[in-house]
C-alpha cells in the first residue's frame, strides 16, 4: 500500500520531502528485512546436519572376511551399504547382459573399481520407495537375476545392482568409496 503515500493526506508540504520519506522507508524496510534474515539464519541452519552427524560421513571396512557369493550390510550416514563379494559366474552374468535390455543402461565395469571386479558396493535402498532389498545372504531370495529382491513391491536387481524388473526407476546408486588396500575400503 506504499504507493498510496503520494496522494494520502500526509501533510508533507513539498514534493522533495515525499521522495525523501519514501527513500527512508525503503532503506528502513530493507535494513529490517536483512536484519530479520540474519536473525533467522542461525535458527534455520541449526536444522542442518550437526558436526557430530557430519563426523559419521566416512566409514572404513575390512572386506577380507566376506566369503565369495555373499554380501554384508554396513551403515554409512545412517543408510545401509551393500558390499558384495561376487563369484566369477555372477560377474560374467552381469557383463554378458546387453545394455539395451536394461531399464537404466550402465556397464558393469563402470559400477565397480578396476582391478577389484569381484567387489560391488551399492547403497542398499530400493530406488522405488526406500525399502532395503533382500539378497546379501546366499540363502535370501535374490529374484530372477541373482542380485537383490525388494520385499516391498518386488523390484529385482541383478548382480551389478541394476534394476531389471519391477517399479524401481533406476539402478541402486553407488556411494563414493575407494580401496585403501586390497582388503580395505573406505566409504565416504
Amino acid at each position, binding site marked *: *500500500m506504499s504507493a498510496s503515500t503520494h496522494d494520502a493526506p500526509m501533510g*508533507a508540504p513539498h514534493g522533495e520531502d515525499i521522495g525523501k520519506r519514501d527513500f527512508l522507508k525503503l532503506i528502513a524496510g530493507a535494513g529490517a528485512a536483512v536484519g530479520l534474515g540474519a536473525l533467522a539464519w542461525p535458527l534455520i541452519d541449526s536444522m542442518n546436519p550437526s558436526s557430530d552427524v557430519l563426523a559419521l560421513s566416512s566409514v572404513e571396512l575390512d572386506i577380507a572376511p566376506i566369503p565369495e557369493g555373499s554380501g554384508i550390510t554396513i551403515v554409512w550416514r545412517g543408510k545401509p551399504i551393500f558390499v558384495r563379494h561376487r563369484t566369477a559366474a555372477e560377474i560374467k552374468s552381469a557383463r554378458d547382459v546387453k545394455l539395451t535390455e536394461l531399464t537404466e543402461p550402465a556397464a558393469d565395469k563402470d559400477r565397480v573399481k578396476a582391478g577389484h571386479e569381484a567387489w560391488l558396493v551399492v547403497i542398499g535402498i530400493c530406488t522405488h520407495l526406500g525399502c532395503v532389498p533382500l539378497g546379501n545372504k546366499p540363502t535370501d531370495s535374490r529374484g530372477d537375476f541373482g542380485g537383490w529382491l525388494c520385499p516391498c513391491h518386488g523390484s529385482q536387481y541383478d548382480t551389478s545392482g541394476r534394476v531389471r524388473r519391477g517399479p524401481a526407476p533406476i539402478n541402486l546408486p553407488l556411494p563414493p568409496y575407494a580401496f585403501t588396500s586390497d582388503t580395505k575400503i573406505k566409504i565416504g
Partner: protein
Amino acid sequence: MPGLHKSEFTNPVVNWIDTRLPVFTMLTKEYAVFPTPRNFNYFWNFGALAMINLMIMIATGIFLAMNYTPNTLMAFDSVERIMRDVNYGWLLRYVHANGASMFFVVVYIHMFRSLYYGSYKAPRELLWMLGVVILLLMMATAFMGYVLPWGQMSYWGATVITNLFSAIPLVGDSIVTFLWGGFSVDNATLNRFFSLHYLLPFVITGVVFLHIVALHITGSNNPLGIDPKGPQDTLPFHPYYTIKDSVGIGVYLIVFAVLVFFAPNFLGHVDNYVPANPLVTPADVVPEWYFLPFYAILRSVPSKLGGVTLMFGAIAVLFVLPWLDTSPIRSARFRPIYRQLIFVLVAAIIVLGMVGGHPPQGIWVVLGRIATAYYFLHFLVILPLLGKLERPLPLPESISSPVIRKGGGPLPYGAAAAPMEKN
C-alpha cells in the same frame, strides 16, 4: 446481526479478505491510527520490548527443543552437544538463557513504570492483574527451563523449589510427591518440566493477548497520569510510537548482544556445568538473579511455613495493589511523598536481591528482615494511608496544555487527526 464488513481498503485482495475477516481494519485501528497519549517517555517502550523478548524466547526455544533430550541420562550431554556440535547451537542456547534474564529485566522495568506512574489504578486494574498473572507464568516457565540442562544447580534448584510445597500443612508431602512423580526429583520430574516448559510460553502468549486487549479498551496511561481529553492530546500509534519503540528495541538488542557475545555466562552459575548429582548438594545453592529478592524473603523468617507464605504473599499483594493504593492520583510526579517512597521500595528490593545472593549469616539476616518488613509495610500500610494523608501537587489541565502554554510549536503533522495514511 451478522454481515460482511464494509472495508475501506482499495487493494482488491486486501479488500476481499478484509470484507470477510476484518483483520486489516483491526490492525489499522489498533496499531496504526490507535490514539496514543502524545507524552510517552522511554519507559513506555518496555511493553513492546517484552513482546519482542517473548517472541525471541519462543523462536530459540523451538529450535533448541529439536536438539534437546529430556532424559536424566542424556539431558546434560544433549545440552553439551547443542553447544559443540549443532550449527549455531551455542548461539541459540546463549540467546535463550540470557533472553530469560533480559525478559525479567524488561518486565521488572515495565512493572516499575506501572508503579511509578500509577498505571495499575482504575480503570486499568484488570490490565495490571493480567500482568501479574504473566509474571507468575514467567517465573514458573523460567524455573522449569533452568532445570532442563540437568546440571547441579538445575537439580538442586528443582529440589528446593518443589520442596516449598511441603510447607503446606497435612497435604504438603503428598503434593511434593505428586509434583515429582516419584520420591525425589528424577526422570519423571524432568519429563513433565520439559512438557510444561514448552506449553507455558503459549499460555503466556494467550494472557499477553488479553493484556493487550484490556490495554486497548482503557487506552495507555502516560507520564502525567491524566486522561487524554481529545485529539490534541494523542498521536496515532504509527509512525510515532512504532518509531519510538524501534529506538528502544535497538538499544535493547545492543545490551542483549553484549551479554550474549561477551559475557554469556555472567548471569549463570559455574555449578550448572557440573552434571546433576542427587547425592551431593553444591556449597551455595542460589537461584537465578531474578528470583533473589523472593528467595531472600523466603529465608527471612525462621519458619518453614512462614517463609513460604511470605514469599507467595510478596506476589499476592501485587494482585490487590489497585485497592491497597487509595490515592486517586496516578503519576508519582504529583505525589511528592510517594515519589520518594517508591525509590525506598526499589532500594528495599535491591537489598533483598543482595541478601538472596549471600549465605544467610550475620548482617545479611538482619538486612533481609528489615527489607522484607519494609516491602510489606510499603504495600499494606504506607499505600493505604498515604492516599489519605498526602497532599498532591496540582494536576495540569490536559496533556497538551503545559506544552502549548510554554510556547511549544504547532502540532506535528497528523497529530490532530488520525488519517488512514498507513493502510
